């Protein structure tokens, strides 16, 4: 009975579904990029009038246990139409209005293109196929999706709170981890069947392989000097992954320490540097990007929390003590020396409430606190120096350095604290953007009393 319970915990303990949600988005994004790059070659690679017509395809590719829609769709125009449908499917998979359906369609189409012409495939395409399959069978794909956003909005409208983070059973995460360990272990095995990886000379040769190197020979000569060390480090990096197979309970019993979470994070970081380095130096197709996609699926709730803490430690000294407050809850937040970003909003305004909903959704670093200035007691306690009339004209935000900004300027500075908007943040500082942004904000703010939750007529 105890064994059954342990087996059940091994496979079905709940974990955060966010890692797989991110993996869904990054998988679709990378596959989209790869197939967009083939825009000019689609009919050449995959149609009957291309480089591998059906009669020749049979000579080169296995004929058993192989399924591809492109054995039935052969006309160049039809193949291109299918390709465009595939691109659309991938975009929808990233956005996630119907995550499961679009994921399965995307995988079926990707497999069809891959099986039609395997001659152009590399290790990266294999990784993406394997990850795609696991995404198809994953218990939930709704994290970071429009489908989940709909659910959050419906809940927030009535309860003014967010739904708890999505969870899923552990088994599909374990399959992904197992696949990555098999990948690296098998790779080490293959390397040991030759001689050059053993004696430290393999990377030296690989870095001279035109047309796969990205940089001129003079630049590569400098990197080649480091190649012997890179050779040995590569084998060591791939071999160490097998240590993640040790159960935490076993290492806790043996050495008194559960090293697996720390080792996994260090391996992920090393992997980003390793595969990122390969990507910078060599063109080996999609392998580097595909491995980074697989890594996102290995992120658990504890990993997101560790990333959040690490990022916040640079901006806040006391933020992580928020949950351990020992002072009187009625003491103003500033007096507690807890440095959160305070966002003052109009609780009677529909548009404002909708904006706060979005800020809460994007508040992945948990740096924002939201204060309804219509609550007189709260307003006098937290922002006694700001007049009610001023608060009513624009959203005010107080930052940890006690700077108070309002309107567009406040929104612009907030983007640096919302990871999903980091990409857009620099553009808001381009010349000319601020004056336009302030005017638009002022116009919207002046008309906001026309907005309710259900609709907005500005």
């Amino acid at each position, binding site marked *: 009975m105890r064994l059954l319970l342990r087996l059940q915990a091994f496979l079905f303990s709940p974990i955060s579904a966010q890692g797989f949600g991110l993996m869904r988005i990054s998988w679709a994004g990378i596959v989209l990029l790869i197939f967009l790059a083939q825009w000019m070659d689609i009919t050449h690679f995959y149609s009957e009038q291309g480089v591998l017509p059906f009669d020749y395809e049979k000579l080169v590719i*296995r004929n058993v246990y192989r399924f591809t829609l492109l054995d039935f769709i052969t006309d160049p125009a039809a193949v291109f139409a299918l390709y465009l449908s595939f691109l659309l499917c991938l975009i929808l998979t990233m956005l996630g209005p119907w995550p499961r359906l679009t994921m399965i369609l995307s995988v079926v189409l990707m497999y069809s293109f891959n099986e039609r012409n395997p001659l152009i495939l590399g290790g990266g395409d294999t990784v993406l196929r394997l990850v795609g399959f696991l995404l198809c069978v994953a218990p939930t794909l709704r994290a970071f999706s429009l489908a989940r956003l709909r659910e959050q909005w419906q809940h927030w409208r009535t309860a003014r709170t967010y739904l708890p983070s999505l969870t899923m059973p552990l088994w599909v995460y374990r399959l992904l981890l197992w696949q990555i360990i098999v990948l690296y272990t098998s790779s080490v095995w293959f390397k040991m069947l030759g001689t050059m990886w053993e004696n430290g000379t393999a990377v030296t040769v690989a870095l001279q392989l035109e047309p796969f190197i990205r940089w001129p020979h003079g630049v590569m000569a400098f990197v080649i000097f480091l190649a012997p060390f890179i050779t040995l480090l590569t084998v060591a990096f791939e071999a160490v992954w097998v240590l993640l197979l040790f159960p935490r309970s076993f290492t806790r019993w043996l050495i008194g320490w559960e090293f697996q979470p720390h080792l996994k994070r260090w391996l992920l970081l090393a992997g980003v540097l390793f595969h990122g380095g390969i990507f910078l130096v060599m063109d080996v197709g999609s392998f580097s990007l595909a491995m980074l996609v697989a890594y996102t699926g290995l992120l658990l709730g504890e990993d997101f929390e560790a990333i959040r803490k690490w990022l916040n430690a640079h901006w806040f000294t006391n933020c992580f003590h928020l949950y351990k407050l020992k002072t009187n809850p009625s003491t103003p937040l500033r007096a507690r020396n807890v440095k959160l970003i305070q966002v003052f909003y109009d609780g009677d305004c529909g548009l404002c409430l909708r904006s706060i909903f979005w800020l809460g959704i994007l508040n992945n670093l948990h740096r924002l606190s939201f204060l309804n200035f219509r609550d007189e007691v709260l307003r006098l306690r937290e922002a006694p120096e700001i007049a009610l009339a001023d608060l009513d004209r624009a959203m005010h935000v107080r930052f940890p350095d006690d700077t108070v900004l309002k309107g567009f300027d406040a929104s612009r500075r907030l983007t640096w604290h919302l990871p999903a908007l980091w990409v857009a943040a620099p553009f808001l500082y381009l010349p000319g953007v601020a004056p336009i942004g302030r005017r638009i904000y002022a116009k919207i703010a002046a008309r906001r009393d026309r907005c309710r939750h259900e609709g907005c007529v500005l």
Partner: protein
Amino acid sequence: MRNIARIVVQVLIGVFFVWHALSVSLYAIPMISKDPLLRPLRDTSMKLIAPYMLSLSQWQQWNLFSPDPLRHVTQYRIERQLSTGQWEVLESLTPAMFGPLRLSTHFKMYIGMLERDSDTYRPAVLRHFLLAYCESHSLPSDTPVRLIYSRYSITKPSSFLAAFHADPWPPHPQQESSDPAFCD
């Protein structure tokens, strides 16, 4: 009733978990390995796992730059023979032809289709590849068309210390020709 259904689902998931993990592990065993235990195990289990792995496109062999990295670099040239007997270049397949996002895809295809030591090389496929140039360049029938391999090999460093130095540059490629194909 609900509990029984939940247990049945969990058992099925458990069976799938074991089956998939085992299939992936066995399929990833290097095909070229001569291990006396694991290689026969892979070969024997293929009858059972190959239909599953191949049908779901889960095939995998992790031999990128392994066992040893590729050591020859080839550029390709398609030539046609003029009535004077001389050969004229129709197209050179060089890295400069392709942008960074298309380069590796095309060269992987050329290696698979055109290199005689590749598992997927077939003379008929090479012939079809060459004859496509007859059509695209409107060549008269019976015009010979051939593929020229311009190839150089990277010296295998003799030791760990020798690996700190790259080969002298530029290399000196050797030329090799395919059998000609005749335009229809």
